[in-house]
């Protein structure tokens, strides 16, 4: 299979008063592991349950309770690591991150600071056809989510919901390889796509199942290249961390704001304080949450309640053998196997469901035609009506049936669109509908000839004009199509009209 090749996108340039600036961005994405049970307890992870109904004793930090690793979450992390072409660490370990907060009942979060389960990997962030950057992934580690503090239900009291407490998260940490706001959003989009393909995270950003901390710094052109050559961070600017972003749009906006803020400070002769900032989407600005001096001392140390996490190479191999085809491979295959454009392949592979739908339609049919129908007719209609593909009223088999009828010459493209409309609203077998409703196009030349004769005989003046100006032949075709209710095969009509008018084929 030929590989698609990509040219790296140009870094986004911010023109300042004192010259150009570039951005350096790294992301820490927290992805909730798709798992029915929590990382260290059997409690359910169902979203939207009654507050404090999905809480095991260990989640609530009850005295004497102990964590036990959920092996499925471990497998999900391995699956994710393999999906990002990353090294899997057969021995990893859990550490405690200590801090006080009411939604953290143990008083510490169990995480993996010193020995993460997944090491270095990479993600191809494809921006537009032919343009893409391979962003390096530094590590993925497993950790517990915290609960939810609710401060607005009572004027004097706060409430705590522990349903989310202890839910498994994967923290996916990128290297500072991202060079612009759009790239950052695309990185998250691509990561989300891969995780959804793998089934290791549902990627639901609205529910907070995927959220990102974004590290942003600015530097002069040329500095980043020095960093790349040496991996020495001193060539880069001081970074600020934008916490808890849960939308691609906000990520993009926040980075853009933050870049301009930092540039303004630097151009004013100031310096950037390393700090954690929050983005306020209503005001469109970031504001300081805590400075480096105010940063917590988390007093990390190995969790003595848990043994080192040891996985076998056999398990890794077994998971690798069951890996699904991922978006990059699928896109490449669609381009090479079906001859479609990279753009169409990207659209079709954006979700594994749409790719599967397409492949069901394309099975044994013309790939390009299938792609056109899936993208233009089906996706267009679904988007317009705001319906998910899984709820589509037209199945892959039905759409395939429509395409078959076109290819067999039973219906024209125009009739096919009517047929699509009928199936969309009423359902049914395409071939049966065409049969029952007499939608089959007329290919019987005798019948077409009779219809053409009728039009010619009824319009002698038009015949004369057409003989002088052959372009007017199209009018006869239109009249015949009209009189046959659109069912006549248009190519046949065209040919007969031209013969009868004495216009030679040219």
């Amino acid at each position, binding site marked *: 299979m030929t590989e698609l090749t990509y040219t790296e996108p140009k870094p986004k340039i911010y023109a300042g008063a004192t010259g150009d600036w570039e951005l350096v961005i790294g992301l820490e994405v927290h992805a909730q592991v798709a798992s029915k049970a929590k990382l260290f307890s059997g409690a359910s992870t169902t979203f939207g349950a009654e507050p404090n109904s999905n809480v095991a*004793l260990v989640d609530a930090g*009850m005295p*004497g309770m102990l964590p*036990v690793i959920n092996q499925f979450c471990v497998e999900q992390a391995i699956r994710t690591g393999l999906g990002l072409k990353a090294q899997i660490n057969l021995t990893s370990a859990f550490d405690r991150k200590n801090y006080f907060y009411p939604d953290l009942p143990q008083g510490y979060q169990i995480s993996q600071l010193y020995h993460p389960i997944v090491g270095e990997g990479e993600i191809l962030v494809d921006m537009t056809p032919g343009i893409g950057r391979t962003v390096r992934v530094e590590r993925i580690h497993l950790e517990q989510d915290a609960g939810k503090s609710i401060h607005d239900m009572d004027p004097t009291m706060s409430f705590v919901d522990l349903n989310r407490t202890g839910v498994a998260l994967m923290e996916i940490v990128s290297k500072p390889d991202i060079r612009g706001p759009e790239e950052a959003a695309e990185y998250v989009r691509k990561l989300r796509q891969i995780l959804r393909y793998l089934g290791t995270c549902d990627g639901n950003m609205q529910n907070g199942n995927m959220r990102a901390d974004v590290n942003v710094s600015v530097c002069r052109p040329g500095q980043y290249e020095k960093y790349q050559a040496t991996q020495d961070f001193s060539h880069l600017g001081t970074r600020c961390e934008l916490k808890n972003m849960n939308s691609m749009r906000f990520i993009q906006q926040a980075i853009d704001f933050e870049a301009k803020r930092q540039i303004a400070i630097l151009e004013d002769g100031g310096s950037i304080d390393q700090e954690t900032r929050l983005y306020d989407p209503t005001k469109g600005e970031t504001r300081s949450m805590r400075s480096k001096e105010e940063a917590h001392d988390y007093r*990390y140390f190995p969790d003595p309640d848990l043994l080192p996490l040891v996985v076998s190479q056999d398990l890794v191999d077994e998971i690798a053998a069951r890996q699904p085809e991922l978006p990059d491979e699928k896109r490449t295959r669609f381009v090479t196997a079906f001859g479609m454009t990279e753009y169409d392949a990207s659209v079709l592979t954006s979700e594994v469901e749409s790719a599967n739908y397409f492949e069901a339609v394309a099975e044994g049919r013309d790939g390009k035609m299938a792609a056109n129908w899936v993208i233009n007719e089906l996706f267009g209609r679904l988007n317009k009506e705001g319906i998910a593909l899984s709820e589509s009223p037209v199945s892959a088999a039905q759409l395939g049936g429509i395409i078959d009828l076109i290819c067999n010459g039973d219906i024209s493209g125009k009739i096919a669109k009517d047929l699509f409309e009928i199936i969309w609203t009423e359902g049914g077998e395409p071939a049966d509908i065409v049969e029952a409703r007499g939608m089959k196009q007329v290919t019987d030349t005798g019948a077409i000839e009779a219809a053409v004769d009728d039009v010619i005989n009824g319009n002698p003046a038009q015949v004369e004009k057409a003989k002088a100006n052959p372009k007017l032949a199209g009018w006869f075709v239109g009249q015949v199509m009209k009189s046959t209710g659109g069912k006549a095969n248009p190519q046949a009509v065209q040919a007969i009209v031209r013969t009868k008018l004495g216009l030679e084929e040219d």
Partner: protein
Amino acid sequence: MTMTLNALTIADARDLLAKGDVTSRDLTQSCLDAISDASALNAVVTTTADMALEMADSADARIKAGDATAMTGIPLGVKDLFCVEGVRSQAASKILDGFTPRYESTVTSKLWASGAVMLGKLNMDEFGMGSATEYSVYGSTVSPWRATGSETKLTAGGSSGGSAAAVAADLCLGATGTDTGGSIRQPAAFTGTVGLRPTYGRCSRWGIIAYASSLDQAGPMTKTVRDAAIMLGAMAGHDAKDSTSADIAVPDFEAAITGDIRGKKIGIPREYRLDGLSDAIAKQWDDGAAMLRDAGAEVVDISLPHTKYALPTYYVIAPAEASSNLSRYDGVKYGHRAKLGAGDGIDDMYEKTRAEGFGTEVQRRVMLGAYVLSAGFYDAYYRKAQRVRTLIKGDFEKVFADGIDAILTPATPSPAFALGAAAEMNPVEMYLNDVFTVTLNLAGLPGISVPSGLSADGLPLGLQLIGKPWEEGDLLNTAAALEKAAGFTAKAARWW
């Protein structure tokens, strides 16, 4: 007979129960009576009389039905560190004021499943931190022992001082203890009882309120070595709910006690012969070695070169883990919450609650632990301590690989001291009490304290035997030989 049933050993009681000569109800009632007469000892902090009698009746039914285990019908006391369903379990701390778990620790549920009877909860140092059972929200436990001709109140040791006092005073036939740095063995030595700390991972920690997770281990405190073997059999076993519990079969520990220790190699570590070790303790130790030699064992000098680092290592690792384990006690979910003033925020709640809820020793260790884990100090303290821990473990592995079967040491540097003396010591002096015991916690090894004699003023002294990992049976056998040779039969003269 009813008056003395509580003085029985577990083994004797088992045999009498099996023969139908006594009932668990009588046995239990006798213990309950002893408990109600012993309030001066302050060993039992919650008595569960109704529960005890109910459990005794079902034990009697079970014995009648021929479905008894060795522990069926045996009345026990439980250290307050164990969560017992429906019974106040607060680690002798104010911060867990009124905490009544809706779950049962694995160790106690195994004991109840074997038919043992729950008499009540026993006093201890708050969260297991202490060597005198003086740091307790319930007040100090008083040892049943007194020096000859003295009325000075003595400590029963700690942290399992309530357990030790209760066993020594015949308030129960046996008791559970936990041992993080010597909390079973030191109180046993102070009270003329037997205390066994099993191999780390032998008993599940699930449902035991954590002090230092990598060091905590539950074990039996009994009147005899045989009883310790019987009781350990009912407490031990793999538990999927504790990731650090070992999936290793539980042998018949009692059957391992054959009395034959001929050919066993007993090591005497030279590093334990500290400067200023009292003559009385040194003599006990030499006598113990001689007894084992007379019983046919080979006694050899060995070296455990990193011993001197054990105490500082312990007092880095244990507080570090404790500072984290105890951060869940924040006033949010259960137990004590400080009354807050107008305008007090969440940090005020934490600070006031923890200042009021934790005693001084717990506060000291939490702060010590937070310090050694803090940024900039982690490498110098915690990481270094972990490295030393590995070296200490290596010392033991080496001598065991060289053919040593068990190691004999004193259990404590002195006999029991007066209550209140701890308050006058500086904390480091207090911590020296653990000098002989902490090493094996760091190495995860089993150890047992066996009463070996009386001091000149009539107080019990104990010797410690350290065994190979997972070889508690062999260790108990050696301990039984020592016990037999020492012939310790003294009992505290009743003054309470």
